[in-house]
């Protein structure tokens, strides 16, 4: 079934939408393949982090998302 990808900040612009579905299971190589091109390159950047169901991954290349999981793609933040 599906993994939900949530794109934040400028990654949502690159993705063309804030949310996208991907087939489960999904690992880091699979994520890059699904994203492709410019978006895969952006997500590979050292400052972009991943969270699965609201839990940050210390090592994003260890991604292992299953059916029903939500993967958030988090570029550098800027608040205040």
């Amino acid at each position, binding site marked *: 079934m599906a993994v939900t990808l*949530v794109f*934040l*900040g*400028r990654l*949502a*612009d690159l993705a063309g939408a804030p949310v996208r579905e991907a087939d489960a299971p999904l690992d880091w190589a699979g994520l890059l393949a699904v994203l492709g091109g410019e978006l895969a390159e952006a997500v590979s950047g050292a400052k972009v982090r991943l*969270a699965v*169901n*609201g839990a*940050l991954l210390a090592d994003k290349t260890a991604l292992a998302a299953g059916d029903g999981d*939500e993967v*958030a793609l*988090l*570029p*550098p*933040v*800027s*608040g*205040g």
Partner: protein
Amino acid sequence: MKDVRLLESAFAPGEAIERFAQGHPDAGGVVSFAGQVRAADGCEALELSHYAPLTLPGMDALADEALARWPLDGVMVVHRSGLMLPGETIVLVAAAARHRRDAFHAADFLMDHLKSDAWFWKREKRAGQWHWVEPREADYSDLARWK
């Protein structure tokens, strides 16, 4: 003691500061910082997005860290999200303490973390075009002071 809020619509910072100060009658002083959308520089609008599973829990943990680091009577952290116009308040932090230096440090600490270490993404509209804003170098070095 701890008042942490993520707001979707405009609010009056002065009112919030006054309520916070009155809620801490044993504190000698209240330091606050209010950040607003600047009218200068041709900024027409500002939009802040956030990621619900991380943003409010992160703000809450930040408030707890300030309470643990300094002897405070209370802290307030209020952050807007959504679309904002020039003059609107983006962020408001306040710290109440017996001794003013603790309150100054805590408010400073909270702001440094909200600027470059909280789950918000900011973009500005200039001449009809949206531009993503990333923290300045100074924001990262401000943050590093607390490590």
